[in-house]
């Protein structure tokens, strides 16, 4: 002890057994704005404290002054790896609240877009797990198919990342032929690429040793922590909103819900991969169903909701009635019914819920987003304590945390 007295170091820096490490908020290994103040003993994590909220934008407060359509762009910015699911989840919530029945063709078109979004979401997550375990190739290789998915979005709605896709009751316009051509290209080429991606990782010894047995959680703990989506299914609970509370005619499709057993990083990876295969199969089924509509039925792309569905632009310019409705909808002059609703969809990383309370005004009285990763990120200390620091990084990316959604 005496020998150290004359060394001028900050107090505690020598005698202390553990080191404090400040990981984030802007760190290349966190893939988003997450801060963790970790206590590490050598390379082992002793404890960690997360801090979140770095990109909090007060969406719930903003939503209280916006009409329904002005809220759609807000939902884009929740889980921005799968914006169309958020947009459609919000529109489906509004439709349920306003008792709007959507035609089957609209449901199937939505399913195509939502499953594409799920693939692009899982693709990012799984390939980033690869990057964090030292395999960059997979990530770069699959990017071109995410690009193709974004091109399909672009063809349907005009934008790529923050899509603002669709309307209450359906889509803003029918899918163009180019969209279907691109979709066919995707369906033809992507399975081979996914197979190759799996060949790179699934039985790769380095990858398996890095991911198996790290970041695991039991089914009971996962449920207690409010896990949903692939993370819960990896722990062995077969809960999927698409099956439990079908929306957008998911009951018409034949698909399985893949589950894991140990809830570790490897199982999460496998579940996401298996879900991508299921998504491909769902898209194929949906595309077949869409093609079976002939004649006038093949032109249906929205429900008949004049109070919420914007009239055609050429009518707005030439027709008084349409102009009035256009104005009323854009200015949000249509009052909502009174009441409240909770409606959920299966987002890219879990159950994305919308709790809407209306007092009969033109904007929601209160809108709460149930953001899946805000809830399951709480389990992070439990997942990584006792493990290696490098595994903590892999665990963070395999949880599919999206800062925009977490911080709302």
């Amino acid at each position, binding site marked *: 002890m005496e020998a150290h007295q004359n060394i001028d170091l900050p107090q505690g820096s020598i005698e202390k057994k553990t080191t404090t490490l400040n990981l984030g908020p802007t760190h290349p290994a966190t893939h988003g704005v997450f801060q963790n103040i970790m206590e590490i003993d050598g390379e082992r994590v002793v404890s960690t404290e997360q801090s979140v909220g770095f990109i*909090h934008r007060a969406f719930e407060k903003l939503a209280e002054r916006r009409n329904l359509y002005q809220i759609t762009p807000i939902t884009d910015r929740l889980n921005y790896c799968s914006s169309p699911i958020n947009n459609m989840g919000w529109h489906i919530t509004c439709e349920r609240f306003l008792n709007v029945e959507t035609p089957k063709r609209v449901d199937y078109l939505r399913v195509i877009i939502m499953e594409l979004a799920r693939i692009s979401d899982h693709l990012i997550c799984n390939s980033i797990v690869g990057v964090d375990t030292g395999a960059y190739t997979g990530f770069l290789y699959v990017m071109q198919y995410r690009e193709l998915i974004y091109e399909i979005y672009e063809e349907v709605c005009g934008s790529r990342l923050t899509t603002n896709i669709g309307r209450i009751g359906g889509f803003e316009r029918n899918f163009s032929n180019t969209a279907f051509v691109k979709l066919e290209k995707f369906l033809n080429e992507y399975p081979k690429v996914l197979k190759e991606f799996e060949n790179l990782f699934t039985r790769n010894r380095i990858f398996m040793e890095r991911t198996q047995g790290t970041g695991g959680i039991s089914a009971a703990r996962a449920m207690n922590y409010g896990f949903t989506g692939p993370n819960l299914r990896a722990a062995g609970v077969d*809960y999927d909103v698409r099956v439990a509370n079908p929306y957008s005619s998911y009951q018409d499709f034949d698909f399985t819900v893949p589950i894991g057993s140990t809830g570790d990083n490897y199982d999460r990876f496998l579940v996401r991969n298996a879900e991508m295969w299921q998504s491909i199969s769902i898209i194929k089924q949906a595309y077949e169903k869409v093609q079976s509509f002939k004649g006038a039925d093949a032109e249906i792309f929205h429900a008949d909701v004049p109070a919420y569905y914007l009239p055609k632009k050429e009518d707005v310019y030439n027709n008084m009635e349409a102009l009035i409705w256009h104005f009323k909808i854009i200015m949000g002059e249509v009052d909502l019914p009174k009441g409240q609703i909770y409606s959920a969809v299966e987002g890219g990383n879990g159950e994305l819920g919308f709790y809407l309370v209306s007092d009969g005004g033109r904007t929601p009285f209160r809108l709460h987003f149930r953001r899946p990763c805000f809830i399951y990120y709480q389990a992070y200390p439990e997942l990584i304590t006792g493990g290696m620091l490098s595994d903590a990084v892999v665990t963070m990316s395999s949880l599919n945390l999206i800062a925009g959604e977490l911080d709302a």
Partner: protein
Amino acid sequence: MALSNNTIEEKLVEKFGDQVSAFSTASGILSFESPAPINLKVIQFLYDELGFTFLTDLCGVNYPDQKGAEIVVVYHLHNFIENVRIRFSVAVPVEKPDVFTASKLFESANWMERETYDFFGVNFIGHANLKRILNVDEMDYFPLRKEFPLEDQTRIDKDDEMFGRG
């Protein structure tokens, strides 16, 4: 036997009598209220007896016109086995927004309660770490309460150049 909303309602009334009230069903979800002091008893009953073992969502709502019950805490619970959802709410006065914490039963309630505290100032009694989560620690108000309006959109005292509108 499927767990219907009527069965749930009967069992709750049988157990808690007139302390549970305002039963209604909208979009297939049964919702009801209880006084704030028995919220944990109700949640524990739902958990143990009726299988609502998953806390889907917990959030606050502010009704400034309901005197003595301005702040409402809403729980959404889910029974995975029967696939039934339920909504349960407790109301507290804004001067003394005390609600018992559900974080001992559900780990997931921990941050959701912190969020509700952050935005509505609900004091969750027994919570181990009740501090702000999304807003800065120095904030001295609860922004989702209705008494804090959003900025006036017609204000003209801002420098347009600073907001990309110059």
